[in-house]
């Protein structure tokens, strides 16, 4: 999978409460959730985001609540991929399970700037900064997680197994 989009850059510890505030969790409709994505951190996010865009953030992205509504909101808002120095563990699981591509690269997280145009190759784990002609390589996923990603998420993987 390849993605191309502009960067929304955030800092460390972006928590799931700012990704999707709990006041909107009385709905589980992804489209509805997406209209409030990042609202408490970046109020103009939903106006500016375009399909394919990429979030680049610092350490511990997605910390806090287990709400899967957070990666769902990001995915449904049109974000193709999240790149961070590190991810909080429940967000990491959730992203893999629902098929929101994520990549870990400290170098990319530190160097890539807001608004930059990126091209990401998920299989290769490469992140190309098209504006500055720089390429970063992300940490590869363990094989087991690659299987979930390839299947299109955990449910698809299990479906195959349960049906056997």
């Amino acid at each position, binding site marked *: 999978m390849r993605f191309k989009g502009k960067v929304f850059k955030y800092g460390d*510890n972006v*928590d799931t*409460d*700012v990704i999707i*505030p*709990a*006041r909107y*969790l*009385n*709905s*589980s409709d992804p489209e509805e959730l997406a209209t409030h994505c990042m609202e*408490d*951190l970046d109020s103009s996010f939903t106006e500016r985001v375009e399909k394919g865009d990429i979030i680049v953030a610092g*350490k*511990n992205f997605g*910390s*806090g*609540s*287990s*709400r*899967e*509504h957070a*990666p*769902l909101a990001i995915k449904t808002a049109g974000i193709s991929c999240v790149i961070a120095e*590190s991810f*909080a*563990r*429940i967000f990491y*699981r*959730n992203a893999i*399970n*629902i098929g929101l591509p994520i990549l870990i690269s400290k170098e990319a997280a530190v160097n890539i700037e807001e608004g930059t145009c990126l091209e990401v190759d998920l299989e290769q784990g490469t992140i190309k900064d098209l504006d500055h002609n720089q390429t970063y390589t992300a940490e590869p996923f*363990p094989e*087991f*997680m690659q299987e*979930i990603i390839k299947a299109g*998420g*955990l*449910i698809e993987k*299990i*479906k195959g*197994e*349960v*049906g056997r």
Partner: protein
Amino acid sequence: MGMTMVEKIIAAHTDEDRVRPGQIVNARVDIVLGNDVTTPVAVKEFNKIGVNRVFDRERVVIVPDHFTPNKDISSAEQALLVRKFAREQEITNYFEVGEMGIEHCLLPEKGLALPGEIIVGADSHTCTYGALGAFATGVGSTDMAAAMATGQLWFRVPPTIKFIYSGRLNPWVSGKDLILYTIGDIGVDGALYRAMEFSGEAISNLSMDGRMTMSNMAIEAGGKCGLIACDEKTREYLKDRAVREYTAYESDPDAEYEKIIEYDVSEIEPQVAFPHLPENTRPVSQASHVKIDQAVIGSCTNGRIEDLRIAAEVLKNNHVHPDVRCLVFPGTQAIYKQAIKEGLIDIFIDAGVAVSTPTCGPCLGGHMGILAKGERAISTTNRNFVGRMGHPESEVYLASPAVAAASAIKGYITHPEEVVR
């Protein structure tokens, strides 16, 4: 080389004799938990899998506690969806309003969370049950769906950081202060992907309620779980509660830890975490005179009977400051009833406190005590993120029930000894 507690528990739930940090395994789970916010998404995913029934109706636990009693029409519809699923699947442990409590207060009380078990919950504070010696961890809704369908889930075996708390606690210092101090020391990602293991004299001396407060906040340091080995206190607590037999595990003396961190608790005073991260901790002596508008006492972190007793001790013969709203949320119906029996609710009401039926309520900015722009709360809850309790420009300061109660009386953040001498 020996194994740590979490390695032993995970291995016991697979067909392997031993597991190693970093290894990815499919393990059997003993309990799968969900609430009214996370279960609706899980039900949607469950229905895609193509199985008709949950793997074991007695091992799926559903507690509608976040936006219940329903705060609005949308949340009522979410709760209805969950209720229908529980009925269709004949879920034994579905707890309706009136029976329910805050999930992480309720499961231990009902004897549903046991040593040596693997408990996954679609709620990040599922790590609470580590205090009972269970490997308990928060997961998402898709994980919940998968676990409900198959009784299994994938895990990456975590490395363990061992924390040793030696010495005796100072007056007014509680489990909450120990965990806030720890998070302040290692940071909100200090235990990312790691198992935290709490041990030492101070942990042995801590009550089960205090231990649950500590394990509850392991996630605030990024931890996968916060384990405390099962001891006499644990067994005593479970004596008339445990719904199943259990096997307790403890770390081998030669287990391999990633790190060992030691604290002398006699040097720790009550802690306050400043906005907007639980790691922004200061001793209460360096936090005084921050004016507050609201004090919240309760939640899955501090809504247990011991917490209410301490709050009542501080509030007895005192009155909440006229500029402050003080709210108390007993964790479960049984805790509420016990508090009535002990006269704690009388003390609260006489002091001008609003007492609520159990709910997560304002902890996550759901309902029952939302903050306006610019308002500040001191809260015994677990997170002080931007907008956590209401307006994005409101602030939450995290502390123990003793500090929250004392602050409610004074109107600003206060050491309990300034109120009770």
